């Protein structure tokens, strides 16, 4: 896929904020000294009066965001996923989640593809941490188009949202004219009756690549994009499980508590079939380029394909 257009979803996120700033005059963007990396700097450039740098104090930033939301602001609070969901977990839970305030958490640099910074910055637990908070919407978009659509949808949605984006460039594939984003609604990307691949975030692209490799072996994969992990689209999950009877989940996150767990929770109750969770297997990451890590942890198209073949 050499000449495919690649854009990091953090980039899409920053651009979307800047594009929507004029449309949402009550929007303010908070960052914790990472505007250049999270790409909120793009918004800052366009709307300097509505950008507030809280400095290196993420816990404080989340509660600042909460206070601003009580005064009618549409607040985007941005930092790396590690600090948004980890360091500031309790502020997100108690100051944003419990009062159900209209704060959007723009968490960038999620997952293993943070790359060279290594395990301390590779957040592999954020989906799990965020989805246990009552009333929290958790979105993990798969490409540029979807990220921009998700930012707009989050702006139009009243309540807390955790938006998970990544550092590394990912191919743009949701560029069809019929593409439609709706919070809580999964997207059927490929029809097939042999095996289901349910993916989120940049793993959706890996799933599409794996499906092609499987097709070469005569295996037809049903590929589902779950961009909203909470609330999750039960119908689409049950439908694909009924169709194939064999489900693989794929996420750039721990297999504990994330997409795989969420899918298992639904299918165990609604349509019990065998589910294999593919992701990071309860280990910390390490330094390396995003590509090398995706390969090592077998999350690229080829690695995913091989894991599916082994488990089938």
């Amino acid at each position, binding site marked *: 896929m050499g000449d495919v257009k690649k854009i990091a979803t953090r980039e899409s996120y920053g651009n979307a904020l800047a594009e929507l700033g004029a449309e949402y005059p009550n929007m*303010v963007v908070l960052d914790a000294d990472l505007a250049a990396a999270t790409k909120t700097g793009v918004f800052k450039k366009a709307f300097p*009066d*509505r950008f*507030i740098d*809280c*400095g290196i*104090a993420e*816990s*404080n930033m*989340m*509660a*600042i*965001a*909460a*206070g*601003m*939301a*009580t*005064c*009618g*602001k549409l607040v985007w609070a941005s930092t790396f996923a590690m600090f948004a969901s980890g360091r500031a977990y*309790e*502020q997100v839970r*108690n*100051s944003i989640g*419990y*009062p*159900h305030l209209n704060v959007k958490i723009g968490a960038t640099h999620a997952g293993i593809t943070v790359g060279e910074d290594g395990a301390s910055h590779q957040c592999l637990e954020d989906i799990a941490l965020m989805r246990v908070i009552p009333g929290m919407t958790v979105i993990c978009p798969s490409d540029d188009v979807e990220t921009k659509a998700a930012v707009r949808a989050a702006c139009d949605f009243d309540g807390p949202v955790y938006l998970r984006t990544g550092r590394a460039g990912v191919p743009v594939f949701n560029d069809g004219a019929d593409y439609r984003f709706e919070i809580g609604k999964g997207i059927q990307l490929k029809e097939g009756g042999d095996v289901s691949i349910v993916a989120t975030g940049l793993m959706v692209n890996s799933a599409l690549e794996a499906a092609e490799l499987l097709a070469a072996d005569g295996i037809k994969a049903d590929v589902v994009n779950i961009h909203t992990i909470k609330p999750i689209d039960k119908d689409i999950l049950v439908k694909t499980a009924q169709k194939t009877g064999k489900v693989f989940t794929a996420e750039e996150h721990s297999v504990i508590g994330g997409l795989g767990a969420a899918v298992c929770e639904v299918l165990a109750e609604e349509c019990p079939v065998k589910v294999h969770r593919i992701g990071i297997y309860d280990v910390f990451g390490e330094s390396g380029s995003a590509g090398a890590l995706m390969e090592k942890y077998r999350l690229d198209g080829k690695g995913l394909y091989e894991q599916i073949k082994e488990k089938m």
Partner: protein
Amino acid sequence: MDNLELKRHANEVRRGVLIGTHAAKAGHPGGSLSAADIFTYLYFEEMNVDPANPKDPKRDRFVLSKGHTAPGLYAALAEKGFFPKEELTTLRKLGSHLQGHPSLKCTSGVDMSTGSLGQGISAAAGMAMAGKLDNADYRVYTLLGDGELEEGQVWEASMFAGAKKLDNLVVIVDNNGLQIDGPVSEVNDPNPIDKKFEAFNFHVINVDAHDFDALRAAFKEARETKGMPTAIIAHSLKGKGISFMEGQVGWHGKAPNDEEFATAMAELDKIEEGLK
């Protein structure tokens, strides 16, 4: 409002604290009583709030960062007319709008959900920041415990408030000197409190928390302070107003039993007599 009237309201707020915690058989009377005069001054003299229009965007905001002293806040809100005083007996009970710690979704007049220490001051700073962006006239008040100052987030929020020159924010410290495990000076001494806030670019005022003239002067000075937030270090007595609770760390998180309740209410009756 003159001091005599303020004292009458404060006495009623103290009654409300006792009624609530006695009925709940739990709660935090010590820090509610030390802050009773501050609550009273804020709600009856300082803040622009209207029980008939509790969500008015132009209202002043109050965030009880030391959320465990909700019985004091609830008593003040009831005294002000946000809800009937009879409801104070439902404190902490199943189905009550008076949760163990303040919840903005539950109680009329509560501007922020708090309880986890250190977070309320940040939310208050956020409200003040929003007011600055909107060129709004409202002011934001937040009340912290002195033990709460041990939370690192308090200083993150203070650095932010000082750096952003939030002169529409007033941080009040209920400096009663006692926390659950003992005197603050022995547990993890936050002193000198005034110097710390000065270092974070606050205008700092030390005041007797139980002297309405002093409180009046302090809040006036805060209003007149431009370009920096104000910290009012309110030197108070834990359990203030109830002889057997005063200065006793044991009354931090313990409710009065029937006998203690009767004795305490009799003491407040006596104070009320003196205010006629």
